[in-house]
């Protein structure tokens, strides 16, 4: 694993009025890492993701992506640089088919052809990604009719089809059954190391199994960072999760 930094978050702060959601967040994710981001509800995890992805502008601080400052880039610019993300709620385009959703996966920042049929030249790599996630039999199903688990698979297929350099996963296991979680864990483990993962997840077994670094976000700051073993053994982290005040 190289020591290149995939993501550097330096002194990010964000408030909504008097509500401070991030006070001074520092985070460094090495290229190729599997980095877990945990913390209780309201710790500011998704807000941090929104700032990294560009949907929310931080009040202070800087974000670096493979050494490049992206703090002022738009969502589309960051996407085109190789940042991918999934959302807590996998809403895609319910009114069209799985195949049509896949066709939408690879936006290039420009207006697509008005003349070329949407399925013309739908490339094999895209369909291969879908196949790896078990979507092949469902290609012509309407997305509105998919089960929650399948919807998550499709979301992942769409973002992986972009071959992102850094993938932000916002609670990928939320709402999945036990067996679906196991499939997902295996899938994420098999991802090539060219993809760096930063993952918010409440399922501790999954976080501990997948991550090589974990950061614990608490009250708008990184409370502690370490290996899965260190985090599991940390008294303060347990206190946070049990609702006790931390020292």
């Amino acid at each position, binding site marked *: 694993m190289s020591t290149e930094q995939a993501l550097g978050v330096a002194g990010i702060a964000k408030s909504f009025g008097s509500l401070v959601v991030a006070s001074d967040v520092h985070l460094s994710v090495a290229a190729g890492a599997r980095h877990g981001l945990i913390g209780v509800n309201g710790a500011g995890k998704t807000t941090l993701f929104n700032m990294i992805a560009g949907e929310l502008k931080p009040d202070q601080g800087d974000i670096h992506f493979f050494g490049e400052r992206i703090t002022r880039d738009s969502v589309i610019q960051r996407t085109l640089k190789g940042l991918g993300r999934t959302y807590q709620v996998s809403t895609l385009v319910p009114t069209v088919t799985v195949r049509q959703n896949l066709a939408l996966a690879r936006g290039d920042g420009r*207006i697509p052809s008005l003349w070329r049929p949407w399925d013309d030249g739908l490339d094999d790599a895209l369909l291969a990604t879908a196949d790896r996630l078990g979507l092949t039999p469902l290609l012509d199903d309407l997305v509105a009719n998919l089960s929650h688990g399948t919807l998550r698979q499709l979301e992942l297929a769409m973002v992986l089809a972009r071959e992102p350099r850094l993938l932000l996963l916002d609670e990928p296991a939320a709402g999945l059954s036990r067996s679906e979680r196991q499939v997902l864990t295996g899938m994420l483990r098999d991802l090539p190391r060219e993809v760096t993962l930063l993952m918010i997840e409440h399922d501790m077994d999954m976080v501990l199994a997948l991550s090589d670094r974990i950061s614990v976000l608490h009250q708008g700051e990184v409370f502690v960072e370490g290996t899965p073993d260190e985090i599991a053994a940390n008294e303060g982290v347990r206190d946070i999760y049990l609702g006790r005040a931390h020292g």
Partner: protein
Amino acid sequence: MKRETLVILGVVAGLLVWLLVAGDYAVSRTNRAMIYALMALSFSVLAGRLGWFSLCQTTLAGVSGYVVAILGAQHGLPYAVVIPAAILTSMLFAVVFGVLTVRARAVSFLMLTLALGQMVWALSFQWVGLTGGYNGISGVRLPMVLGFNLNDPRVFYVLLATCTVLIFLAVHRFYNSRFGLLLLGIQENEQRMRALGHPVYLARFAAFVLAGAIAGVAGVFLVYDMGIMSPSPLSLNQAVLVLTAAVLGGYRTVWGPALGAGILITLQTGVAQYTDRHMMVVGAVLALCILLMPRGLSEFSWKSLVRGRRATTSST
């Protein structure tokens, strides 16, 4: 042969047969129906693909009508200049309107297009020096071409029907294109489309200008069909009529707007022969249609009717 080709051939054959069997009055009403079909198509491009309900598509058509009347009838410029200038002016207005509306959502978009449309409408009867006010500009005529008088309803019909069929075919192609799919994606999930690298505002803006171009073409035909340009085509009445045609026929499909415009003009023409209160009858028929077929005639199925109204109304 592909089913699509058969449908197109069927439509062309139907239009030809109609030209042979219909009387002059029926042909001129059909011309009007095709013009409304184009305006309803312009409306439907935005409503069906983006969930944007515009009340200014008739305004954009009216702008193009005024350009034809002013440059053509008043200043006598050649047709090859007048007609492209008219369509380009509609697109230019769409560019300006688009810049103002591109970030708006459902209701605010509707209100913005209403406000913009009403501004231009007010201008059309107040700027008497340019538009002739309520009297309008008369004497808008098409030329003789190869011995055919294009002002003759039957000759005009051939020209209009050809353009209408071609435009509907082009829109059909566009609905099935990557851009058409992206617009559906934007309608459902703007945030996601941005995260997948699609320029959301630019795409919406392009769709708005495209719809403006269709309205511009409709406006050119409208002014030549009427022979006079006045503020009335820009009134809210007309915007609502076009909206009604699109909703009645089904604005999500390509041919729904044509179906709706056809039915609306037929109703108006047919019922008016029997009673002066024809608008009441038309209104009642429309209310019934929309209750029974909320997605419009073109998406009507017996199954959804039998399944009960709950299933159908919830889908609007």
